[in-house]
């Protein structure tokens, strides 16, 4: 089984062509200022989170664990989770996102993937996770539903299919996404 990373799930949902440019036809990508800025904000947030209570997660108490590396042989998936909370025997993955648009679908399934990895790590089911939107300082609860788990497994299968068949996926319908894309120069049929 081809080993994949959780970010691949996020990227596939954003645009399947990113998978092609990452695994099948690797090209040099440009690190954008937005990505650098995101990293800096993450570090600051780590520092602040350590001192905060769990009120904004609607939890009375708990323990924060940062940057846990997670891996599942069963899923053929690995990744490093921003943070997770252990509270009263339950586990809640938290992903920090720097976006002005609120949680998006690619973030949601990234979180679901981490939840699935966390389940394998602790051998316990995960019911909820949080997408922490940095500019809003708000954690959005995301329910980890059976359908969302199936969806992630389907996405993993589709990613592996792109890699195995070495076939370039169709261009993305969301033309707005191409504007900021680091692979824009390599997408010949996207104007």
């Amino acid at each position, binding site marked *: 089984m081809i080993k994949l990373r959780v970010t691949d799930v996020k990227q596939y949902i954003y645009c399947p062509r990113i998978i092609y440019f990452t695994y099948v036809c690797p090209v040099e990508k440009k690190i954008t200022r937005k990505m650098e800025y995101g990293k800096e904000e993450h570090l600051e947030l780590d520092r602040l989170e350590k001192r905060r209570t769990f009120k904004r997660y609607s939890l009375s108490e708990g323990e924060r664990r940062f940057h846990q590396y997670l891996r599942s042989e069963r899923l053929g998936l690995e990744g490093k989770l921003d943070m997770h909370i252990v509270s009263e025997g339950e586990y809640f993955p938290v992903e920090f996102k720097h976006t002005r648009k609120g949680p998006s*679908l690619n973030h949601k399934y990234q979180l679901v993937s981490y939840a699935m990895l966390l389940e394998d790590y602790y051998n316990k089911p995960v019911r909820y996770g949080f997408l922490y939107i940095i500019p809003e300082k708000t954690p959005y609860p995301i329910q980890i539903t059976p359908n969302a788990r199936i*969806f992630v497994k389907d996405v993993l299968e589709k990613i592996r299919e792109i890699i195995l068949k070495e076939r370039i996926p169709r261009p993305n*319908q969301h033309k707005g996404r191409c504007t900021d894309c680091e692979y824009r120069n390599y997408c010949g049929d996207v104007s």
Partner: protein
Amino acid sequence: MYFLTDEERKQLLKSYLPKSRQMDIADELRGWNWNQPPLEPVYDIKLALYEIANSYCPTNRDLFLRRIDGVKARPNAAMLRGKLLHQVLVDVLVRAKKLIYLHGVGNYQEFLQEHKIPFKTNFERYRSQLSEEEFSSLARDAEILANFETSRIVARIQEILIKQPYIAEDSLVSLAIPVVVEQKLDGSFLGLSQNLSADAFTFSEPMIIDLKFGEPKKFHRLTTTGYALVMEAIHEFPVNLGCLVYAEFKNGRLSVKKDIHIIDDELRQWFIEERDEKMRMIYEEIDPGIAQNCYDTCPYYRNCLG
């Protein structure tokens, strides 16, 4: 068939309804955003909703044959049976509504008398398309179905009448039979036919209901999802729930199971993906090839395998 049991109602009120209201559906997947990706249709083709939702053929070659090669296959016995039993249910429900309006609440005894007259649907013109055994089984099951639904409606009406002494016809109809059957919908915003017809729709809490007489399949939920998206596109209110009603006849008895489900992000994405793939197949005239595991009652069996 469309009325919930006490347990189903409890499930709906305590579980599905609060969950569906809490759950954040991505706005881009709401039907009212049909004018932008991913809902905006890529191709200028109109498909029937069943053409997107049905995946009985593993490669969808049935759709290719129908739309590109123009093959008109005769429906198989199961399809015909489903169609006719659907019609029986529609006839019973519509007849009940008509009789309430006709006789009024004051003459409800007359309504009850007339409503109890066994309902007979004339299937004679379909006799030649079914074997003798299939035909008699269909007639028997249609009678069971009609009797069941008729007595259920009578019970519901009587229950309302003992509680509401001042009720008038219109209110009685909406309380006793709170479903619209064969709701016509224009799906053109989403690249679907403008003559869609949902089996049933409840309006107290928007819920799409679809009746099935065959084995449950995962893709059946695509039907309710498609109608939910269309309703959202037309009326701009959220439709979060679907319900598949599976009816089965065993030893002269009707058994009904319901699959109530939340029309979540995943189902919506699945529907859109199916739509886009099937539209592309037709637009580009891509023959998807013959499936490896065809079912022998497929109406296109001969076209594919000779």
